[in-house]
């Protein structure tokens, strides 16, 4: 085998169709091929990536660690963790919905169909549905909705009813509404532009859902304000919940202890690793940010 240097620093990442010499793996490093990378609106893009079948094990709430191309010629040194938006097993594709914000996502936005993109994953503990839950409530804001969207896929598969409260600045940036609806979720949009996203209003909606027996469990991502509200209502009505969190991350495997956050467990403050202990955590243990 001639030794070839490559931009990926590795010759052991899996491409579509490769035979996996370590099939017992939980996590892979994959070189996917960009199928499309379409702009959804001024802020968001939607990446579809053809990947090796080992990458399709990802479930709702899990992440991939993305080796983003440079947007500016200078090196992007670390991967960027991003939750998976959708897994299409039949097409052998994983999808990401992202906001172009920092250097990593700006580089990612430049990917063209046919380009290679190196992703490592799936990482972490995702959302879990208990068999006793018949109806769940999902409340998300901004890009947090991309993390929550696949939960509706999971719920649909298990016959669980979903009410999704989608919070955003204005109608133009309400993300994932179509995907939630397509998967049978009832959606309620609340906006800053008409004041309906105010905590008091969301609280009123949640209280109604609880009274109607539509809230066996709470799920959230993307807003500290909404997390605090759901923690309060969860405690009051004894409703369990899960929250997806993010943090600056390096290794993704639990080794480096960069991505820790504070949690309160049995009255004690502890640090947990978002990459391995999360990114989905018990809502009541989250201290917020």
């Amino acid at each position, binding site marked *: *085998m*001639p*030794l070839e*240097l490559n931009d*990926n*620093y*590795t*010759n*052991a*990442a899996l491409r579509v169709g490769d035979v996996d010499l*370590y099939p017992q*793996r*939980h*996590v*892979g*490093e994959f070189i996917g091929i960009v199928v499309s990378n379409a702009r959804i609106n001024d802020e968001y893009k939607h990446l579809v990536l053809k990947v090796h079948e080992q990458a399709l094990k990802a479930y709702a709430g899990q992440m991939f660690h993305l*080796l983003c191309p440079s947007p500016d010629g*200078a*090196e*992007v*040194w*670390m*991967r960027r963790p991003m939750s998976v938006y959708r897994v299409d097993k039949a097409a052998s594709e994983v999808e990401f919905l992202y906001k172009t914000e920092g250097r990593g996502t700006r580089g990612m936005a430049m990917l063209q169909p046919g380009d290679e993109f*190196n992703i*490592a994953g799936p990482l972490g503990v995702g959302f879990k549905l208990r068999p006793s839950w018949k109806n769940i409530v999902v409340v998300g804001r901004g890009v947090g909705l991309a993390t929550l969207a696949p939960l509706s896929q999971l719920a649909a598969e298990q016959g669980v009813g979903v009410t999704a409260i989608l919070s955003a600045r204005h109608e133009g940036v309400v993300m994932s509404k179509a995907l939630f609806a397509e998967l049978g979720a009832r959606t309620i949009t609340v906006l800053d532009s008409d004041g309906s996203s105010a905590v008091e209003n969301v609280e009123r909606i949640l209280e109604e859902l609880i009274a109607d027996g539509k809230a066996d469990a709470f799920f959230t991502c993307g807003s500290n304000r909404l997390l605090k509200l759901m923690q309060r209502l969860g405690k009051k009505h004894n409703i369990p919940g899960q929250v997806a969190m993010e*943090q*600056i991350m*390096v*290794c*993704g*495997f*639990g*080794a*480096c*202890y*960069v991505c*820790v*956050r504070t949690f309160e467990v049995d009255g004690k403050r502890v*640090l947990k690793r978002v990459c*391995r202990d999360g990114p989905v955590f018990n809502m009541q243990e989250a201290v917020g940010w």
Partner: protein
Amino acid sequence: MVDLSVKIGDITLQNPVTPASGAFSWEYNDVIDLNRLGGLVAKTICREPRLGNPTPRMAETEAGIIQSIGLPGKGIEYFVEHIVPEYAKFTPPLIVSVSSESIEDFAALAEELSVPDVDVIEANISCPTRNASGGNFAMHEDYTRDCITAIRAKTKKPLWVKLSPNAGDIVSIAKAAENAGADALVIANTFLSLKIRTDNFRPALGNKFGGLVSPALKPIVLRMVYQVAKQVKIPIIGIGGVTKAEDVVEYMLAGASAVGIGYAGFRNPTTLVSIIEDLEAWCDERGIKKVTELIGAVRDHDMETDTLVAASAGV
């Protein structure tokens, strides 16, 4: 096919590629077959459970990342009872990194870690954000000598000593460690660094200072390995900026017997396996029968490295 095995004192590594302490754990078994590595290197363990430093613990710079983690862990008792057995499931030797702020406690920890499943004690006397008199002993010859002498008296395990690139004269410190009984030298820990944000004027890391981790370190650490290898007899493990098989070759030519890899494994979690395969191919293409032929094989015999001497000789 090339024989990739190397000896570090009494320990044989099946190949010269190991992870660097702090950049690895048994959890990497999720993504690569750990039985293919030259060694397994556990994250530095301290006596008491520690939470570590405030976040953010990592920041990107123009040429690598800086990080300051603060040696979090569950303490030595938990480590010996629960973590060592996780590593013992795999075949490569287990190298356990250890640190303390006092020399007496350092030696006592090394003694308590000398259990059957631990193959090597790596004395991390070079944590960059600690003081020279309290954990970063490798900043100074005398502290290094005293610390390694004390550890040597308490353990019969192979003792590797991790040196600091932040010391003024690493060769003197390497000799002090060798004379005090080190079986091998690990060169080097990370470079003490600082990043200040221009948006809010604050240091980017929660602990203010951090260690620089980057491929940019390779030429600097390679120079240190070269200089130390000329002056000591014990083996050297080179750590700093290895991202590909040729980098392993380069460190071995400079005098290292093995390498440690940190950053590249963060960037590409499969890279350690890739580098081992590529190193094998590299040697086979050149008809190299034993990788140990590369150790110290740099062709520098006819070169004058002292520029003053060179200038006076009219070179």
